[in-house]
C-alpha cells in the first residue's frame, strides 16, 4: 500500500518490480507445468476468470486447498478404523480425484488413482502408502499454489493484472 502512495518517484521502480514479479510468476508457472504438477485444465480455469469474477482462480484454489485438507483428514481417519471401510475410503478418494482433476493438479490426480486401485484391492498397507504419496503431492502443490497466489497478489498490488488475463 505504501508504495502506491509514493506515486511520482516510485513509478519506474514499480514498473521494474512489476516486470520482475511477472517474470517470476511466468517462471513459476512454467516450472509447475514442466514438473507436471498442473495441466491444461488450470489454464482453462484461469480463462474463466474475468471482470465479473475477478478472484475466481484464487477462490477455487483456496477452496481446493481447504477441501483437500478436509478430505485427507477424512481419509486418514477412515484408514485407521478397523476394519477399514474401503467403500467409504473410495468415496473420499473419488472426491479428491474429482477436485484435483478440476483444478488440473495432475500428479495429485495420479496418486489418487493409485490410492483408488489399492482400495479396489482392499490393500490397507498399500492404501496407507498411497496416502503418504497423496499427502506429499498435495503439500507440494499446496505450497506451489500458495506461492502462485502470493505472486499474483504482488502483481496486482503493483498495479498489474494477472498475466493470464492480459490477452
Amino acid at each position, binding site marked *: 500500500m505504501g508504495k502506491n502512495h509514493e506515486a511520482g518517484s516510485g513509478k519506474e521502480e514499480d514498473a521494474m518490480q512489476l516486470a520482475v514479479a511477472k517474470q517470476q510468476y511466468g517462471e513459476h508457472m512454467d516450472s509447475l507445468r514442466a514438473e507436471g504438477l498442473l*495441466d*491444461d*485444465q488450470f489454464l*482453462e*480455469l484461469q480463462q*474463466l*476468470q*474475468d471482470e*465479473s*469474477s475477478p478472484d*475466481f482462480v484464487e*477462490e*477455487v484454489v483456496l*477452496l*481446493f486447498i481447504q*477441501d483437500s485438507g478436509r478430505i485427507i483428514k477424512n481419509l486418514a481417519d477412515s484408514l485407521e478404523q478397523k476394519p477399514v471401510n474401503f467403500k467409504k475410503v473410495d*468415496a473420499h478418494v*473419488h*472426491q479428491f*480425484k*474429482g*477436485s484435483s*482433476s*478440476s*483444478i488440473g493438479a*495432475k500428479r495429485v490426480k495420479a496418486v489418487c488413482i493409485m490410492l483408488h486401485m489399492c482400495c479396489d484391492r482392499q490393500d490397507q498397507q498399500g492404501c496407507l502408502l498411497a496416502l503418504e504419496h497423496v499427502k506429499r503431492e498435495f503439500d507440494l502443490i499446496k505450497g506451489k499454489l500458495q506461492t502462485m497466489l502470493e505472486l499474483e497478489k504482488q502483481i496486482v498490488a503493483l498495479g498489474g493484472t494477472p498475466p493470464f488475463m492480459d490477452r
Partner: protein
Amino acid sequence: MNAQMAGGGGDSLWFEHWHTKLFILWVFFMALVSLSVYLQMNAEMLVRRRDTLKTMCEGRARMLENQFLASMNHVRALTALFTTLHISKQIAMFNQETFSQYAESTAFERPLMSGVAYADRVLHEDRESFEMSHGWTIKEMFSKEKQQVFEEYAPATMSQDTVSYLTSLDMMSGQEDRENILRARASGKGALTNPFRLLESKHLGVVFTFAVYSIHLPPDATPDERVKATAGYLGGAFDVETLVENLLHGFPGSEMIAVNVYDITNELCPLVMYGHTNVSKSENTYVSSLDFGDPQRKHEMRCRYNEDALPPWTAISTSVGIFVIGFLVGHMLHASRNRIDKVEENCRMFKELKVLADEASVAKSQFLATVSHEIRTPMNGVLGMLQMLMDTRLDATQQDYARTAQASGKALITLINEVLDQAKIESGRLELEAVPFDLCAILDDVLSLFSGKSRDEGIELAVYISEKVPSILIGDPGRFRQIIINLVGNSIKFTERGHIFVCVHLSEDMEMVMEGSDYSGDDDDYSDWEVDGPGCVPLDMKCNQFNTLSGYETADDRNSWETFELLLAQEQHSYNPDHDDHHWNFSDGNDVVNLVVSVEDTGVGIPLHVQERVFTPFMQADSSTSRTYGGTGIGLSISKCLVELMSGKMRFVSRPKIGSTFTFTAKFQQMHNSVHESMLRNTNSVLQVRLLPTCFQGMQALVVDGRPVRSEVTRHHLRRLGVQVMLILSLSQSECSAAAFHSTVGGGIDMILVDKDAWGAGTGIRFPHMLCQSASEHLRQRNKYFASSVGLSHGFIAARLPKMMLVATSMTDNEHKLARENGFTDSVVIKPLRASMLSACLQQALGVWNRRDQGRELREGSRSLHKLLSGKRVLVVDDNPVNRRVAEGALLKYGAQVECVNSGRAAIVKLKPPHNFDACFMDVQMPEMDGFEATEIIRKAEMEASECMSGGILTKYHPVRIPILAMTADVIQATQAECLLCGMDGYVAKPFEEQQLYNAVAHFFEAGYV
C-alpha cells in the same frame, strides 16, 4: 506306506481307479460264470452219456438173458422128453441119427448153443457091456485115449452134428463138466459151468447140463435118490464167444461200447465169459446183472465206452464265448469310463488354464487402460490447441490443414480406444453401437488421414459411394471407420504406384451385376449427360492398357470400367433422383442396408503361399514384410472380426506384383424416413459433421478426364455438393468439342475440372489450350452459316471460359507455373477428393460463400454458447466444492445464472415443480444419492405435477420437463445409454469442453425445447 494309502493319496487313488478295480472284478465274475456254465454243460453231457450207456447195456443184457433162457428152456424140454422116454423105457427110440436130426431141426430154438449132446450114465460094472454094445471104448476127453478106471462114466452117446466129436468121450473126465454133472443130477435142475475153453473150437463158453432120470421123482426127492435115479445127462454148449458176439453185433452202436460178461459166482475173482478186453468195474462202466437160470451161479454184464468222452467242445466254446463277450463289454465300459475320466481331467485343466488366461487378459486390459489413459491426456492438449488454432482466422487451405490435423488427432484417440477394444474382441465381449452416422463423412475422414502419404508418393486415392446408398446409416461408425482405416492403411503401406480405390455399393446391385446383368444392353440411356461413344478410344499411353482408376492392372476386375459401368447402369436404373432427396423405398420394405465395400490397390500384392493366413492375428506375409513395412499384422484380423460382427463377410483377391482387392459386406440399418437428416446433424453429437454447403446447388460443371472410372469419382464428389456434372472423356471427338463449345460460349457451365493426367501424365495441363482451339474451330464453322461478325480471338474465348480447375494428385512448382500459364488460374484441387475440401476449393475459386456460413459458427462457438446460455437459470449439483465452483465459473462465463447445491437431495428440493430453472447439470457420482437416482425422483415428481396440471389448465405454460445433463469425469463409465435410461438428457465430460458443452446444450435451447 499304508498310512499314506489311508491318507488323501489313497482316496484319490481309489477314486482314480475304482473303475479299474470294478473291471477286474467283472472279469473275474465273468470267468466264474463261464466256468460254471462249462461245468454244468459238461455234467449234463456226462449224465446223458451214462444214460445212453445204461440203455444200451441193459438192452444187451436183457436180450442175452432172454436168448440164454430160451436156449436153456429148450434143453430142459429135451431133457423132459428124454426123462419121459426113460420112464417108459423107450429110450432106444433115439439113436445117434434121430437125435442128431432132431437136434439139427430144433437148433433155431437154441440160438446161443453151438450144440447139444446126450451122455449115458455108465457105472464101472456096466462099462464092458456098454462098450461092447456100442462098439467103442470110453475115451478120456482131452487125450482121446481109453478112459482109466473110475467108479462111473458119462460117455456121450448122441450128439448134434456140430459137436459130433463128443461121441464116446467121457464127459466126467473134464473138471468143469464133471462138477456140472454132479451138481445137475443132485439138484435135478440145470447147472452151468464156469466159463472155460470149449473142446475143439477152443472158444470161450459154458456148458449147460441137465440130468435125465429113469424114474419119476417127486419134487422133494433127496439128492441121493436123484443120483440113484439118474440115467444120463443132456448138455448143451454155449459158444459164448461166437454166438453172443453175433447177437451183440446185431445191436446198433456196438462199436461204441465194449461189453464183457463175467461169471461172478466167486466175487473175488470174476471170470470172463465174454469180451475181448478186460472191463474193470469202475465208474465209467455200467453193470447190469444177468440171470441165466442157474441160481448157483451169478453173472453180470459190464459195459463201457470204447473211447473216452470227447472233450466237450460245445461247452468249451459256449463258455469261452460268454467270457469273451463279458470281457469285451467290461472292457468297453472300462475304456469309456477311462475316456470320460481323461476328458474330465482335460476339462479341469482347461478350466484352470482359462482362469489363468482370463487373469492375464484382465491384467492386459488394465495395462491397456492405464497406458491409453496416459496417452489420451497429452493428446487432449494437442486437440485443444488445434481447436484454438481453428478459431483464429485462417484461409481455406489452412483451415483444411488444421481440420485434418484435428481429425488425425481424434483418429489417434479413437485408435487408442480401439486398442482397448481389441481385448474385447478377443474375449468376444465387443458389442456394436447402433447410432446414426454419415458414411461419406467417415470415408472422407479416412481419406484425409492418408492423403499426406498418398500425395507424397503420387498414389491416387479415391472414394466412390453409390448414390443408392443412404447418406445416413445406423450402425457403428467407429468400427466401420476402423475397418476402412485398416484396409486403406494396409494398401497405402504396400502400394508404391497406381491407385487405391474405396468403393461402396449396395450388395443387391453388386449381385445383380455379378450374375450377368440384364442391363448390359441398354447402358446408353442411363445418362443423358455423358458424352461417350464408339469414337472414344483411349490414347495409347504406357499405363493405359487397363481401364481402371489409374490405368494399372488390378487383381480383381470389379472396379475396372467395364464392371463399373454396369454397376452405374444398375444404380441409375433403379434410382429415380426426382423421387425423394435422401430416402429410398427399398423394394423389400426392410430397413436393412447391405453394403459391399471394396478397397482396391495396385501394390505388391500378397504372395500366394501366405494368402490363406492373411487373417491370422500377428501374421504378416513374411518376416521381411514387417522389416520393410512395419506394423503388427493384427489389423486385418480385427477387421475381419468386426465385419463378421456386422454380419458380413470379408474376402480378398490378390495377385503378386499386381495388387490386392479386399472386399467386405456389412449390414446397417436405414434411418427411418420420418427423421430428417438436418435434424440429426443439429442435435446428435455423433453426427458432428455439418451439412455440406448448399451454395453450389444447381451449378453445372464439366469434368474432363480420359479415364472413365476416375471421372465418375470426380462426378460423384461434385454431385454431393449439388453440382450437375457433364463428362468429357475424349477430345478427339467433334461432338465433344461441340458440347464443350455450347457449354462455354452458350453459357450454363460454371466450372471445368480437368484431371492433370487426363490422357497420360501431365496432359491435362494443356487442356485449355486445346479447348480454345477446338472452340474457335467450331465457331468458325458455324460462322460460315451465320456470318457473324464476332471477333474470335483466343483472348475472347479465354475470357468467356468458366472457372478452370486442375485436379491433381501432386503438383511440382514447375507444374504449378505451367498450369497457370495454360489458363488454370483459378484453383488447383489436390486429390484425394473430399467433399469438404472440394467445397473449400470451389468456394475459393468461385468466390461464393455458403449462405449458412458453417465455418464461422464453430469459430464463434463461445459466443453462440453465450447466446444460448445467457440469462438461463442453471442448477449445478455436485458434492465436490471445487468441481462445483469450477462448473459454476464456466457457466457464469457464458452468461448463465447459476445456483449450486451440494447433494442430490437438495437438487430434488430445488427442482420440485413449480420452479424456474431452465437446466440442471448433475454430477453422477455423489455420496448418499447419486445423480441417476436423483434424476429418477425428479422425473417422477415432474410426472405427477404435469398430471395435476393437465387436469386443470390445458395450456402448456410451464416447462414440464427440465433438461438434466450428467456431469462425469469418466466418459467410458457413464455411457449415454445409461444416462438416457434414467431420464437424463445427455452428458458432458468434466471438465467442460466448449464444443461438447455446446453440442449438449444446443440440443435443448436451440431446438426450442424451452
